[in-house]
């Protein structure tokens, strides 16, 4: 790692001011992604502002939902009784990611900010527009088996690697952030962005803004849910495809549906079309299959990820089957 300075911050405003003052300063929370990026030379910060002492760890019921502090660890969230009771999809998604040790370290805010696992991004000897704008996209004509199906650009075809984010998208979470001048709320689906011409920007957060909490609105998706993750080994691997599926069922009748996919886009990919199609239908394999087909409209594959065009709809079907207890 390059040498950097380290300060502990005890107040959010102070932490934010540190970043305002120093363009090469970064917030440090769990560090599971940041420290790795520094070790690999992808990031060379001049200062890390340790925010772990900020009082942002709480998980509490609020009017109309649940508030999760940005510094709550992934494990704390996944094991929390209110999460298990009201948002089991989130618990499943978190537990599908990384390893128990990493989930103990990683925070909710940090996980939201997790950077892509694209191999070209991590290897400073290869081109990557996200790491080094203008250097080219190594994956576009390279080994792109793990890469995007939706919303990619010629500049970048990387995917967001977080499982938690897929569930948060489906659950319509709201991210509360604090900036040097003002606080604001960002709908989860607006938080991450598509690469377009600026793949170096993963999301819409300003550099000096700090995530304070994630709010989950109350919903009725707490019974028929499933997070399915297809990966190259049984555990501790990034997704080839993942699907967050939640159904609000009255008997067989679908009163509501939430669907999102991971491993297919630069952001967690909400499947609005499929959700709309499912509304009012009777749950069943054929209906799910049709929903999956709708979800895949507009998908574009590259040389090594053609299989995702088959795997993704199959995974949607399987996730819906499991969520609805069809098997």
């Amino acid at each position: 790692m390059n040498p950097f300075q380290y300060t502990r911050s005890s107040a959010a405003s102070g932490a934010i001011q540190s970043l305002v003052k120093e363009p090469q300063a970064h917030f440090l929370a769990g560090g599971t992604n940041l420290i790795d990026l520094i070790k690999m030379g992808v990031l060379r910060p001049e200062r890390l502002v340790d925010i772990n002492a900020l009082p942002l760890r709480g998980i509490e019921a609020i009017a109309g939902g649940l508030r999760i502090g940005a510094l709550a660890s992934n494990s704390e969230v996944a094991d929390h009784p209110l999460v298990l009771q009201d948002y089991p999809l989130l618990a499943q998604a978190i537990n599908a990611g990384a390893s128990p040790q990493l989930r103990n370290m990683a925070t909710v805010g940090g996980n939201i900010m997790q950077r892509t696992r694209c191999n070209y991004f991590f290897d400073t000897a290869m081109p990557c527009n996200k790491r080094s704008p203008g250097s080219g996209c190594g994956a576009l004509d390279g080994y792109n088996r793990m890469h995007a199906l939706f919303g990619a650009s010629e500049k970048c075809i990387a995917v967001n690697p977080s499982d938690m984010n897929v569930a948060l998208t489906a659950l319509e979470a709201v991210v509360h952030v604090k900036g040097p001048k003002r606080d604001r709320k960002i709908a989860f689906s607006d938080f991450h962005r598509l690469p377009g011409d600026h793949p170096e920007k993963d999301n819409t957060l300003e550099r000096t803004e700090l995530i304070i909490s994630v709010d989950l609105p109350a919903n009725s998706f707490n019974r028929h849910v499933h997070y399915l993750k297809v990966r190259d080994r049984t555990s501790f691997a990034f997704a080839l495809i993942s699907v967050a599926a939640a159904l609000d069922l009255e008997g067989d009748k679908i009163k509501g549906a939430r669907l999102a996919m991971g491993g297919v886009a630069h952001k967690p990919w909400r499947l609005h079309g499929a959700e709309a199609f499912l509304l009012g239908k009777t749950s069943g394999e054929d209906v799910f299959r049709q929903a999956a087909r709708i979800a895949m409209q507009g998908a574009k594959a590259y040389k090594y990820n053609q299989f995702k065009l088959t795997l993704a709809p199959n995974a949607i079907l399987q996730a819906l089957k499991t969520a609805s207890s069809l098997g």
Partner: protein
Amino acid sequence: MKKDKIGDPLSRIDGRLKVTGGAKYSGEYKLPGLTYGVLVSATIPCGTVSSMDIQAAGKAPGVLAVITPFNAPKVPGYQPGAARPVRGLKLFNDDKVYFNGQPIALVVAETFERATYAASLVKATYKAEPFETDFHKNFDKGVIPNEGRYKDYVRGEADAYKKAPVVVEQDYMLPSEMHNPMELHVTTAFWDGDDKVTLYTKSQGVIGSQRSIANAFGLEVANVQINSRFVGGAFGSSLRTWPHEVAAVQAARLVKRPVKLTLTREQMFTLVGYRPLTIQRIGLGATTDGKLMGITHESHSQTAVYEEFTENAVNVSRFLYASPNANTRYKVVPLNVGVPTPMRGPGEATGSFALESALDELSYKLNIDPIELRLKNYTDMDPERNLPWSSKFLKECYQLGAERIGWEKRPTKPGMQRDGDWMVGYGLGCGAFGAYRSKTQVRIKLTPDGSVNIQTATSDIGPGTGTAMTLIAADILGIPAERISFELGNSAFPVAPTQGGSQTVSSVGSAVHDVCIALKQKLNTLAGLPADNTAEIEYATILQRLNLPSLELTQESQSGEEARKYSMYSFSAHFAQVHVHSLTGIVRVKRLVAVVDGGKIVNHKTASSQMIGGAVGGIGMALTEEAIFDDRFGRYVNGNLADYHVPVNADAPDIEAIFIDKPDPIINPIGTKGLGEISLIGVAAAVANAVFNATGKRIRDLPITPDKVLMT
């Protein structure tokens, strides 16, 4: 008195050290003045380093030296005409770059952090030259290796399979696989004056390391001390002395302080070998009732442009099954890649995947049960060498394994059995690996308190060598294991072979056996008894009575003529039951039964673990492991443990190891044949064959990832 016998399930003698963190590995010796070495890797696959800017690195805090091709002190063994030349890459000896990731500089600094940072400041400019890393594109450039034993083999008629009534002809691909032992490769070196050097290094063979370092620096062998008491896994990656080990010694001489050079996990993908990418073509021809008429086995595998690597990929097809006609062809394709090195099961595992898959394909063509097909072509003598087997219980392996896995439940047609959304299938894969024995010396010392110390320069990379040796000694001497201390991993001990090729128990165990018998005879004689007296004697009393401070013996053991009169192999039959998810293509190995004819089993506890571990390695080969190149840059794109998928706990099913446990009457006095390799050989085919049985999809290129299942 408690008796510990060969075959007992003895817990590891070093278990306590390993579960308390007390076992010290090569990078864990706190030496005064220790410095840290970090390598800088090239970022082009071929060319020359035209210039290097080491100013920033040299000025960085705590930096003691920056060694490059332009300033490196000469390593005598690297020079033309060296009396004892060093094979392989000659690091920093010239400005040539042969593969991407090749070290071009070594930074030595006061701390790990400072060395690592300074290494990132080293800048190189290159004169890049055209390169080739694409194996498939260069397939036709394959050459027959220089070494004579790799020339084409023909028994009867070549390619006779083509004339048979039933023919299978298929290509099988195995990607490059990385050993990835959990311990990072590390060498700590320090000099005593100009002619003596000591290394703590990750080594499977301290004697080999000693000779290599002596050769590199033109030293007396006795002036090189190698310590490698604990080795954090190796699986072949520490069979030889690597250039970075020489570089650590070179750096230590320069800075006149101990240097600890640790490779990063990423560097281990290019600098310490791997199982090479291989494409094999198998041709099988049979009569309609399942008698093989011809076997043809061809293999192309990658090697480095700067050093040729070869292994026994095709040999299994010459002897495992009876066939009047058999022929093999073996070629290597030199590329701008790091040189491969044997990886557990080495070429035999590669070859067995292809042969055993093809045989499975033939069984469906013939509509004959895969076990029956193998029995129809069973051979009671080695058809390659025309010699009797020293022992072979493969039939028993088939039978025991079939019973244990529930082979009768296997659907004879593929894709017929389901468990919900999962398709269920069964598969069999067999293997064979040569049973070797090398010359070994062992020293034994008895002291008047009745304790016995045994020393030999063998290694233990994990199988439990010391534990097995202790059991052998306890059995022969008739004393409890607790009274015996066994020491290894030190080049000052009597000469023993490198731990590789499944030969340690056969070689070192025989020597321990022999030296213990010699000790008993000596004691008998001292006690005035006939040398071959078998009645129990109290050792300590004899020493006390004769007023001897200790009794010490060194004995050398080796094989005789038997290797010329017999064909000696371990055999295995692996049975897998898999579940394959119909929508996602996920494969789960649900059960695995490994039945092995490895001769006499010395320690059932550690031997079982070794078999289970090999099976997990085989599951990795079958389902998850693949090192992937981007041939535009000649660089790995998944050179780390997140993206190169070593199996995790959740990938490992219930694995059962079953031993025939019959001593081989020929090979050595104990009758052991070896387990390390055979535990893995055949597993990948068993899994692939089970996937076919479950799905009707024949996947011939490993690993069998969900995408391949779905798209086949």
